[in-house]
């Protein structure tokens, strides 16, 4: 068979092992090619590059780290804070080369990287390296001080990567204020197969790190900007697979923890749904969350309660005061309560934290109280993205999510603009308060509940030491009555009812009496009737006898007078 000249080169990918990054790159960085990682100071370039190298080293792809900027000893020490044990990998699976130029080095004329690359190739062959990182190439390039020479060396580097079949990451500073570096940066972006930008900025006093794939030759990728978080175990990208797993919708209902609310919702929340509880401060949002979690724990379902800016033991104490005792479930490990400070990172980084919590605790029921704490402190853009990502997270995990949104006002219509969750949530319950006759009462309304029939009635929410109960509210002259007004109305209605019942009884007795009277009269008349009938019968009998007697007497008289046969016969 003749050989074909055109070789079909399959694009293979090197997994970075960085959560989320492998998702948005559809599998990792281009294998045997170069990737440019550009970003400002503190944007996570070195961490991202090193993590990719370490993950390769652990999974049978040894790597070389060429440090132009930092001492390798310091890099190794810094990596220990992420729990990566580099000394154990060093020299066998990982090799660090310090190429930091001496501070007093003088450049007098052109130089090139050919010797460095040649010696690196020898080292790579010797240790079987598959990956290589050039950390901050610009330190070296800036010595050249010649755009043309800089381009030439970059080209040499990229060429070398491809010919050595090494997966390379080249980091480079990318400071918007520094115009002088733009020339070779532009060139580098055209040259390499994959370009990733990292950004680090402060918005509303909260630090955000973001990552964006600018280009990726021959591969699909997510082109939007995603959040990058540097956590305890390294870098993590807050994103989800390009094709989300399509799980079938559950028709199972689970209890909200409040029986009346379950019946208002036609049986409870759907399993796997997202439920939003919105309302002003003190409208029992947290207590409803507590009821939900308690019901979940009593069903034996592992649950997770994330409280922003409220310590776990305070949550337990406060809920105990309304008859919701989560203590035993926390002790048994069924329920995990995690307190997180909202202002530490941006909203999207929080999603990363929540994702890790879900992974660790594998809850079936999940509460975030309040969700608005992390959304309101953030920029508009991430406020839009964050709920979407959160719901993608809980839906893919099949977790039933109840989250609360704190509102300053009492107007439900305002919420749509305040929190985007309201548009994506499956069930939205609004809690408000009603001030009337010098008291404040809580009210509960179901604003929407997808896929379920639900009551349109406002209910009064009554909170006492036994938890939450829902009561009907009274409408009087266009106003909703709650609390003691409702109680007064209830008493008044009860009295009116009793009065009505009494008067009916009275009337009944009157009528019964009248009936009895009529009956008595009927009896008298009947007796009179009988008497009259007797009299009549007697009269008729007497008359008949009289007639019979008369005829007999007449015949006898005739015979006694010896009359002839010519009788004056009576016709009878």
């Amino acid at each position, binding site marked *: 068979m003749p050989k074909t000249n055109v070789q079909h080169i399959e694009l293979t990918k090197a997994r970075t092992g960085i959560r989320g990054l492998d998702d948005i790159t559809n599998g990792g960085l281009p294998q045997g090619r170069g990737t440019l990682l550009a970003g400002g100071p503190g944007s996570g370039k070195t961490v991202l590059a090193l993590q990719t190298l370490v993950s390769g080293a652990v999974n049978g792809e040894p790597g070389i780290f060429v440090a132009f900027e930092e001492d390798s000893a310091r890099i190794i020490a810094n990596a220990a804070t992420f729990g990566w044990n580099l000394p154990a990998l060093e020299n066998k699976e990982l090799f660090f*080369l*310090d*190429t930091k*130029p*001496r501070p*007093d*080095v*003088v*450049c*007098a*004329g*052109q*130089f*090139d*990287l*050919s*010797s*460095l690359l*040649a*010696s690196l190739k*020898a*080292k790579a062959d010797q240790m079987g390296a598959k990956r290589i990182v050039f950390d901050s190439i610009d330190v*070296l390039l800036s*010595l050249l001080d010649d755009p043309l020479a800089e381009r030439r060396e970059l080209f040499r580097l990229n060429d070398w990567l491809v010919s050595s079949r090494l997966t390379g990451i080249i980091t480079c500073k990318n400071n918007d204020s520094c115009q002088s570096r733009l020339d070779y940066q532009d060139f580098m972006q055209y040259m390499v197969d994959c370009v990733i930008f990292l950004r680090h900025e402060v918005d509303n006093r909260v630090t955000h790190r973001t990552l964006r794939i600018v280009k990726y030759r021959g591969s699909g990728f997510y082109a939007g900007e995603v959040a990058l978080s540097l956590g305890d175990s390294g870098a993590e990208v807050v994103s989800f697979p390009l094709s989300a797993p399509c799980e079938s919708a559950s028709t199972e209902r689970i209890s909200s923890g409040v029986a009346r609310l379950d019946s208002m919702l036609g049986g409870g929340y759907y399993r796997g749904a997202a439920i939003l509880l919105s309302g002003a401060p003190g409208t029992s949002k947290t207590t409803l969350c507590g009821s939900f979690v308690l019901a979940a724990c009593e069903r034996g379902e592992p649950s997770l309660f994330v409280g922003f800016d409220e310590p776990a033991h305070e949550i337990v104490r406060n809920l105990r005061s309304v008859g919701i005792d989560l203590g035993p479930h926390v002790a048994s490990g069924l329920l995990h309560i995690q307190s997180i400070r909202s202002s530490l990172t941006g909203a999207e980084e929080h999603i990363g934290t929540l994702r890790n919590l879900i992974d660790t605790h594998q809850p079936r029921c999940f509460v975030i109280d309040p969700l608005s704490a992390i959304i309101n402190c953030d920029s508009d853009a991430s406020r839009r993205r964050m709920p979407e990502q959160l719901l993608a997270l809980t839906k893919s995990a099949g977790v039933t999510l109840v989250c609360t949104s704190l509102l300053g006002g009492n107007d439900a219509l305002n919420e749509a603009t305040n929190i985007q969750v309201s548009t994506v949530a499956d069930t939205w319950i609004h809690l408000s308060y009603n001030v009337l006759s010098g008291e404040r009462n809580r009210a509960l309304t179901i604003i929407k509940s997808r896929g379920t029939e639900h009551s349109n009635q406002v209910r009064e929410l009554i909170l006492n030491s036994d938890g939450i109960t829902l009561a009907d509210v009274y409408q009087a002259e266009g106003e909703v009555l709650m609390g003691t007004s409702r109680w007064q109305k209830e008493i008044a209605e009860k009295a009116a009812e009793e009065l009505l019942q009494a008067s009916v009884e009275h009337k009944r007795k009157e009528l019964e009496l009248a009936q009895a009277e009529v009956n008595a009269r009927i009896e008298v008349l009947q007796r009179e009737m009988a008497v009259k009938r007797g009299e009549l019968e007697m009269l008729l009998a007497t008359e008949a006898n009289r007639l019979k007697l008369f005829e007999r007497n007449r015949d006898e008289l005739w015979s006694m007078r010896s009359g002839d046969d010519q009788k004056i016969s009576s016709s009878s």
Partner: protein
Amino acid sequence: MLTTPPFLEPALKTTDEIFAFRLYVAGEAPNSILALRNLKSLCQSLYGDNYRIDVVDVLLSPERAWAEGVMVTPMVMRISPVPVIQIIGNLNNSDQALNALGVVMENRV
């Protein structure tokens, strides 16, 4: 005309010290060849015959080069007299090279 700055003069006058250089090259790369030529002519004009140049091919002994902190080529290291001075590049920029070697130029505009 080239001359040494006043604070270096006593050292030059009192000793017959050899000026020792080590030049790291990458095989016969153009920049490496250029560097050797430039270094030779520079030394000739500065020190007459009172110098020595060792050439190290990094491609042949990469481990040594790494151990001595040599990453790019060509690179010149003045071993003696101390302090050690490092100059990278092909030395086409002689002003920079002379500055590094502690030589100042006179009669320059």
